């Protein structure tokens, strides 16, 4: 299925882009002084590699951070954590792996120097001078909305020729000729040079964006939902064009989309993102043929397929939780149909469940939160407190949540709820480079449940002092 071999012989084996634990947190500011009161964790620790000549697919629902990650990779916004490397050789990658395994203070001066050397040459957000320009030439982006990404006051000749001018590649008549040949390579022509973007249809405008991205003959292009604003017949034209260009020029793509059908068609490997984290990662064959994460399964089930005979569209209950306060454990557990007690049940889940029965929370006056797993709910009177206590204890709570409950006690007007704390869920290789973050399939999930609580909870409390703040919000 992959027409281009992932490694090309001309260079040493390397990845075009290596994303290593990238985080992008946006501050939430409040008040006159714009005090930072929280962080929206748009991208929260994502790692993958894109090899030369391949297409990496990034798929997920709106708000999962796929576009933000694309922008980080293309250097439009700096990541707040983690590192993105450009053209990192496998040798250097192995060195980095080695050094990263050593905690920061224990590293020798030599090791530090080595990291600095690699960073200076390859790390996208610290590149400067010539290396930075090389990177900018070689990494281009095509945006989703061609209406807002093409300047309405510029002619096509200026739009497509701009990168050539900026990098002093061509000028005068040569520039025009270069632009014409670019336009021809995307199926437009000389007759389109002196027109404005509004004179084109959506498909043609997207072709102009692609021509502009190709102007400097880049190695790598981030395609951020390039066809989601287009009709299917035009989408097919653009997808075919992208594939042709990739074959001709040996391009490497990062293909971001919410459309599973399109991603499946275009990508060699796919990362499924949910709430800022990668839920599953693997070749498109493995991922679609044998998904190992309930979220991937849910996406597949919800996607209507022309080819299938049976109509089996199935949705997911609930909504995507806020990335400003992502769920503990596995971030998908709040909507997961097969969640287990170990998936990270917390106070917010209990509150969300109580909210469905609206009379129960009517008398709530305050929530004292010691951690996400441990909180006291204060009520106006003893009756409502005991009603809530009973509801959590005996009501039709999801069995997995009930099993994760460590303690519910009602004392006067307050209810104390404590869940068994869990570790965050990490991605694990389940064979052949197929990674999943679902406890049902990983070794992490095979650890004994419940975990040995004493050492664990004290660790968490020390590591997480900020979460013990007192709020009186009913939910996140």
């Amino acid at each position, binding site marked *: 299925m992959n027409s281009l071999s992932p490694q090309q012989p001309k260079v040493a084996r390397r990845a075009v882009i290596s994303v290593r634990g990238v985080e992008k947190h946006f501050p939430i500011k409040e008040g006159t002084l714009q005090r930072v009161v929280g962080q929206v964790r748009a991208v929260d620790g994502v790692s993958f590699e894109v090899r030369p000549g391949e297409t990496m697919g990034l798929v997920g629902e709106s708000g999962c951070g796929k576009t933000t990650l694309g922008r980080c990779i293309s250097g439009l916004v700096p990541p707040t954590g983690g590192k993105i490397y450009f053209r990192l050789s496998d040798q250097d990658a192995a060195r980095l792996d080695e050094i990263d395994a050593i905690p920061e203070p224990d590293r020798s001066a030599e090791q530090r120097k080595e990291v600095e050397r690699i960073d200076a040459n390859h790390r996208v957000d610290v590149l400067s001078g010539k290396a930075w320009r090389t990177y900018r030439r070689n990494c281009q982006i095509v945006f989703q909305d061609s209406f807002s990404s093409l300047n309405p006051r510029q002619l096509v000749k200026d739009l497509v020729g701009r990168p050539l001018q900026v990098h002093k590649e061509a000028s005068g008549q040569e520039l025009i000729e270069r632009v014409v040949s670019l336009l021809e390579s995307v199926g437009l022509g000389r007759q389109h040079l002196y027109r404005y973007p509004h004179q084109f249809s959506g*498909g043609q405008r997207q072709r102009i964006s692609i021509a502009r991205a190709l102007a400097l003959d880049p190695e790598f292009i981030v395609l951020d939902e390039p066809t989601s604003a287009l009709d*299917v*017949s035009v989408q097919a034209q653009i997808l075919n064009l992208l594939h042709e260009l990739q074959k001709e020029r040996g391009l490497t793509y990062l293909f971001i989309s919410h459309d599973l059908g399109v991603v499946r068609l*275009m990508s060699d490997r796919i990362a499924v993102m949910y709430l800022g984290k990668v839920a599953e990662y693997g070749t498109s064959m493995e991922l679609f043929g044998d998904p190992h994460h309930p979220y991937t399964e849910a996406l597949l089930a919800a996607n209507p397929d022309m080819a299938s005979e049976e109509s089996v569209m199935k949705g997911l209950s609930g*909504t995507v939780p806020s990335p400003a306060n992502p769920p503990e454990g596995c971030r998908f557990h709040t909507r997961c149909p097969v969640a287990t007690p170990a998936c990270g049940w917390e106070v917010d889940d209990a509150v969300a469940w109580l909210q469905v029965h609206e009379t129960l929370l009517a008398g709530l006056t305050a929530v004292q939160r010691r951690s996400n797993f441990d909180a006291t709910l204060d009520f106006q009177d003893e009756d409502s407190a005991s009603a809530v206590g009973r509801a959590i204890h005996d009501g039709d709570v999801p069995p997995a949540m009930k099993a994760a409950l460590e303690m519910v006690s009602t004392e006067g007007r307050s209810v104390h709820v404590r869940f068994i704390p869990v570790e965050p869920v990490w991605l694990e290789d389940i064979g052949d480079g197929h990674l999943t973050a679902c406890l049902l399939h990983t070794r992490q999930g095979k650890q004994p449940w419940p975990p040995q609580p004493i050492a664990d909870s004290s660790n968490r409390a020390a590591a997480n002092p900020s979460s013990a703040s007192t709020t009186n919000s009913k939910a996140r």
Partner: protein
Amino acid sequence: MTQSQVGIDTTQGQATRPLVASVRDLKIYFEAKAGVVHAVDGVSFEIRDGETLGLVGETGCGKSVTARSFIRLVPSPPGIYAGGQIDFWSTESRRNRSEPIDLLQIPHEEMLAIRGDRIAMIFQDPGKALNPALSIRSQVAEVFYQHRSEEILEPFGEDVPRLIRRAARQQTRSFEKFLLNLPPWRAKAAKLRMRVDELVAQALTETQIPNPRTIMASYPHELSGGMKQRVLIAQALACNPDLLIADEPTTALDVTIQARILELIAELQERLETSVLYISHDLSLVKEICDRVVVMYAGRIIETGTTEEVFSAPKHPYTRGLMAAVPSAHHRRGELAAIEGTVPELVDPSPACRFNTRCPFAVDICRTVDPEVVAVGGEHTVACFAYNTSDGSVDLPTLERWVS
């Protein structure tokens, strides 16, 4: 509506179902600088009782304009209702076996009574369809004030004071509103409000909204997209309409939410025995949820039939092309069957098959004459010369296999 055939059953027997609406030769034009745009140009189709009819087509093919003309929402000017009629049978008129009403001819007041009551619409972008400055409660309540004032007045019994009656219709003037705040009326006004709250909560519960009372007090920006669409559905189905027009109700939503919303619409449709006109550009979706399909291209209908007929054996080259262009598991990369070219301009079109510029099989006749709609077995009809029989005088196109 107690006939046994009501509900979503097999395609057999559908032809005998009574009609809800019948569109005949509908023409809607728009005045533009360049000339008159023939956005909808002679469209005819029927909607039967209890069915889900899919109206499919790409951007600019006139599907939304067609749907909006049902409740006369096409702004005029620049829109021109240039011809045709839309006959509509409400449940009552069908029961009394009376004549249908022509939605394009009835006076404005009558239209107001039908809009939102007998014919309701769900719009594409729930974010734009709700007023950001009003609470969910007041937006849903408006439907009841408009169409169900009798229901609101139920708890007041037989003898309702005139002021309360006016309040239940939202016809109070400012001094009357002031009166309603004074002691003799205050209790009654509160009772009225509680009754409306009750109806709104009930409508929201229908669409499986958790905590309807909390949601009622909130504003659109506080809700997620899926929740907003549920509110719109509650609003649309509050009066138990005969016809629900769903204009791409899930385009703005994520797939997992989309599936839930579609489940909800299907469930409510079955329970309320409503007919649905479902507009979408997404073929795979239409295949899943519709009983019959109408395919539009550039203001014309080019193919109709049951979902089964159209999807298992598409006849028109455009329909075939469209289906081949949807990426699916068996496609190889770079071999997606794209339809070359773009949708033609609809300014003062000359007679010709509208698809001839993009059709790989077009011959001379396609470029000069409008193709007639021909039946090709069952309920399947198509407007393409390839299905006409020739008397030998003109060349007709033959459809070979669509692009390999």
